[in-house]
């Protein structure tokens, strides 16, 4: 949620500048007063958040022995990530799983989010009711959602297989989380179950921003609801699509709790559900004596990748929006 705020801050900033230019503007209080107001937040945020983030980059270039930082080793830690067994094999596999996770979520969760936003847009009874229900699972911890679905999908006593049997579809019943072919898709679906309400709310807010006069004009021109959606609403929703895409990307590449609950710390069965978040955790806290150096290097790579791709997406969507104007 917070990132959507960040992504739209430009609009906000422009607005405020405008306001400032009009307003009188108080003379700022003395530096002492300013410091008293700002320092608590500044210190807490810097010491426990920004400073450790910055240190990650520095630490990745050093050798570690347990908790003790040793000498400068250049890019040695980065090389180790790609040459030392087992991390060199787990890393590309986990990366691929994150990519699947992202694609699957975009196709299932966000498409459903758009669909339900559109279905609930036309004023009708129960809009708020359905929105509330659909958003409910978002509140639940990812770990709890994972455990809940691992019980649901249990091969012996799980309700899902029971429902399939009752419906005469016994052939479909299987150990969902025990089979490498279905384990990751099951996690993607459980995750979509939890998060679908979020893109739905964002798309709803986006749809509400489109002027009713535009829709009216299209209707008068004889546009069908489908044409209205495809030619008018969807292009105007592009900024929201961009926000949802970036948020999905960041969320999926940080996936941790739900995968832990459904596949364990090693991404069972046999690494079929291993993701970067788990590899990072294992490298840092279940690794060898030099684990902290290696984990810092991995953190830097993931940081650059996640941040870089998000920024690229933001820019790409912005250009796309401009081209449609």
């Amino acid at each position, binding site marked *: *949620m917070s990132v959507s705020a960040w992504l739209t801050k430009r609009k906000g900033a422009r607005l405020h500048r405008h306001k400032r230019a009009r307003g009188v503007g108080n003379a700022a209080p003395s530096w002492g007063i300013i410091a008293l107001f700002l320092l608590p937040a500044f210190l807490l945020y810097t010491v426990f958040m920004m400073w450790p983030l910055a240190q990650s980059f520095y630490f990745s270039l050093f050798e570690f022995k347990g908790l003790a*930082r040793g000498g400068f080793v250049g890019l040695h830690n980065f090389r180790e990530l790609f040459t030392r067994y087992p991390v060199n094999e787990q890393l590309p596999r986990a990366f691929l799983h994150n990519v699947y996770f992202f694609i699957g979520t975009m196709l299932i969760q966000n498409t459903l989010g758009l669909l339900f936003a559109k279905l609930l847009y036309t004023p009708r009874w129960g809009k708020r009711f359905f929105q509330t229900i659909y958003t409910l699972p978002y509140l639940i911890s990812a770990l709890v959602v994972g455990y809940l679905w691992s019980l649901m999908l249990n091969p012996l006593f799980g309700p899902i297989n029971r429902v399939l049997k009752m419906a005469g579809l016994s052939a479909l019943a299987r150990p969902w989380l025990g089979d490498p072919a279905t384990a990751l898709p099951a996690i993607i679906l459980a995750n979509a179950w939890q998060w679908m309400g979020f893109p739905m709310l964002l798309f709803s807010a986006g749809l509400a921003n489109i002027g009713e006069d535009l829709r009216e004009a299209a209707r008068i021109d004889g546009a069908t609801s489908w044409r209205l959606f495809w030619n008018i609403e969807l292009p105007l929703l592009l900024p929201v699509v961009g926000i949802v895409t970036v948020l999905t990307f960041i969320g999926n590449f940080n996936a941790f709790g739900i995968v832990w609950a459904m596949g364990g710390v090693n991404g069972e069965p046999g690494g079929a559900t291993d993701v970067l978040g788990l590899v990072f955790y294992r490298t840092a806290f279940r690794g060898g004596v030099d684990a902290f150096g290696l984990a810092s290097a991995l953190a830097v790579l993931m940081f650059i990748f996640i941040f870089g791709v998000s920024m690229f997406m933001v820019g790409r969507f912005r250009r796309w929006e401009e081209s449609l104007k």
Partner: protein
Amino acid sequence: MSALKASRPGRLNLATVGTQVLLWGYAAVVLGPLLLVVSNALRPTREIFKNPIGLPTSPSFASFVKAWEKANFHVYFFNSLGITVAAVVLATAVSALAGYILGRYRFQGSAFLSAYFLAGLMLPFRLAIVPLFLLLNDLGLVDSRLGLILVYAATGIPFSVFILSSFFRQLPQELSEAARIDGAGEFTIFGRIMLPLVRPALATVVVFQFVPLWNDFFFPLVLLRSTDKWTLPVGMTRFFGEFQTDWSTLFAGLIITTLPLIIIFLLATKQIIAGLTAGIGK
């Protein structure tokens, strides 16, 4: 609109029926598992294994008592509550102070500071765990609830400062000017006049910090070692190992962990929806 509806009643009816089917169908997909959790927590495990989908014949809260007492949930619950509330209060307090100054005044470096606080919204903070762990270790704050509170409070600051400063910015100048003429100092203007006016924003900020912190699994997993300091999500991992065959208790544990959030959701649906869509128009 109504003319259109009248001219094509057949098609529109079909669409309406299809829409209703989809809406109720997905509502069932969301609510089904949740209702099943509640129902199964009230039935003995024996019955669940016989038939995983069913209503309790003689509802019993025995599993809740068992999870609460035997599975240590009373310890995890109050740890979660204490840590989360402390972190939210701390972050909201310091963010309100900073948000006020950044929202109301322009001074040298104010634009930079706003951007600096904002930057935290985008950064995948968990990746900083190694330096953070070493820092807390140096401060003697590993395996300490205080350490976790400080880390959590720091993570709440970017969003809170962002929301609060934009609310403070929108308040009219006249209010503070009148107070200043009456000789009120900056802290009086902040506490007596401005803060009460941004109460809706404070509610949003509080709810939006509470939920992710209550649910967080990564930081307590790494930073807390003694089980008597564990929060609910970490306790859950041990619980699911120890009670794996006792499904009724497992379901009860899931409910205990989630109940405070459901209560918050019912009390603050509006703030939650407002916060989720912050930045996108209405």
